[in-house]
């Protein structure tokens, strides 16, 4: 994932917030968040060996998949629920976003934009399923289940009754300001109900 996404999330989360990180991996980012923002954080991670890494970092972690992990928490337990880097891989993103809003007040989601110009050009001129920096695997190996654009995501938000309050767009050159649906490869967005 673009390092700018992590930096943006660090900027968005205020000191002392309660944060749930879904798909927290080895906990490196969550540890950084705890250290720099002094948040009360917990992670959910599916793989035992990665959850063990989180324990080594002294993080509170729940080893489980995201759906079952979310079910463990009471309503409105968190200020922020993070979904960074796994969004396209979720089987039922709508259900998970709804659940995320049950346990948290705000939800931050990162995803890859499937309508960036590089992707469009590959489909148009090569006639092949695109392989780019943010979509690095060929179709038969990718863990991405869903291919969405920024416009698709906004429509998805409207459908769920949640609205983006802040967005940040990135490509390999850095931050994208103009025509993100064309130029951005990765997106992070802060949603509120």
């Amino acid at each position, binding site marked *: 994932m673009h390092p700018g996404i992590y930096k943006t999330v660090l900027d968005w989360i205020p000191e002392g917030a309660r944060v749930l990180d879904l798909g927290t991996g080895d906990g490196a980012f969550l540890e950084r968040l705890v250290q720099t923002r002094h948040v009360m954080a917990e992670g959910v991670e599916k793989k035992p060996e990665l959850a063990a890494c989180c324990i*080594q*970092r*002294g*993080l509170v972690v*729940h080893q489980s998949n995201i759906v079952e992990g979310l079910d*463990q928490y009471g309503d409105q337990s968190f200020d922020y629920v993070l979904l960074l880097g796994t969004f396209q891989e979720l089987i039922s993103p709508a259900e998970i976003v709804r659940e995320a809003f049950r346990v948290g007040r705000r939800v931050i989601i990162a995803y890859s934009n499937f309508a960036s110009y590089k992707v469009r050009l590959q489909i148009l001129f090569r006639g092949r399923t695109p392989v780019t920096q943010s979509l690095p695997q060929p179709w038969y190996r990718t863990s991405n289940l869903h291919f969405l654009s920024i416009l698709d995501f906004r429509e998805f938000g409207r459908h769920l009754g949640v609205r983006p309050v802040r967005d940040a767009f990135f490509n390999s050159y850095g931050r994208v300001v103009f025509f993100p649906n064309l130029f951005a490869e990765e997106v992070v967005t802060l949603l509120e109900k």
Partner: protein
Amino acid sequence: MADPPDHIVEGDLQDQKITGYQSPLGVTPVHKVTLRGVQTQSGFVFDQIEVTFQTLGTLSPGRDNAILVCHALSGTAHMAGLHPDTGRPGWWDFHVGPGKAIDTDKFFVICSNVLGGCDGTTGPLFIRPETGKPYGMDFPPVTITDMVAVQAKLIEHLGISRLFAVVGGSMGGMQALAWAVHFPERVRLCIPIATCISHSAMQIAFNEIGRRAITTDPNWNGGNYTLDCRPNHGLAVARMVGHVTYLSEHAMTRKFGRTLQPSADPDDQSSLFSVESYLHHQGESFVSRFDPNSYLYLTRALDQFDLFDGRPPEEVLPRLKARFLVISFASDWLYPPAQSRELVRWLKRFRVAATYINLETLYGHDSFLIENPQFSQVVRHYLDHELRKPDMKETAVAI
């Protein structure tokens, strides 16, 4: 799940003959202490209670590095090192010792035999002062809470006001949970392993088979048996059933399959399946070290355990102060991971800091007793990290 290394020793260390087993602790003694009276939950008053226990490591000058290890149904006070009489390794020697999951170089580690047990703590084998005969079935009902109350007396006797951690698997996990509920100020970390907040019908059912095997053995005689005429057959059957529930299908297939074991008697041409002779051995080995009445009392305590004791969870859980590390094993079908998740769910609903990990081991419920690098690492890292943090509750503690 990858196949584990062949050298892994399965099952309870106390029932194994492991040639050349070395414990870095060498021979470790057990101690006995007589403590002033305790009243059980059922209202029975013991004027005094004898407790057998073991301590390893050194208590820090601040008395803040004590870890209580709670043993499971068939466990003893002798958790690690080699037993001075039998030479056998303690039941948790894989995980307690220098540099191990519970590091005796860093922590003062305590384990005591439970109330109602048969390893030297007051139990049905003890002589009742009024009658001069063993208590037998006149021993009062024992609960997990009673066990913990006796442990609390022992901890006070050792001059410790607050435990760094309480750790235990299975019945030991229930004790760890009861500690966190009944003595919230005295527990910093709670590590329940392969346990539950109350037994399911299936768990009670398996225990009842064991109890029934004992009480229908003619030698049981209402619990009034002598040492040379005990219901050994019933106890052995109880252990055999129990043992099957502690394993997994995978572990049994891998270890025994359908291989045959020739009879030890040279005149006997018949042979048993390996799994049969293994279970016979487990049963016999257990009979030599366990009291049938104790088995009845302790399995009853397991079945009766209810973390909330019939109270609404919202009355019990907000009082908890400990941080939790909850561990389950994917292949454990006796205390399935869903039971640990149920516990974690309750904790999280009341905003108790609870870390949960479900380890992909192959050995069923016994997974916490065997050599397991991932398990060791998780426990060690969790304790290490907490050791580096200041104790937030220290100032609020009073005995």
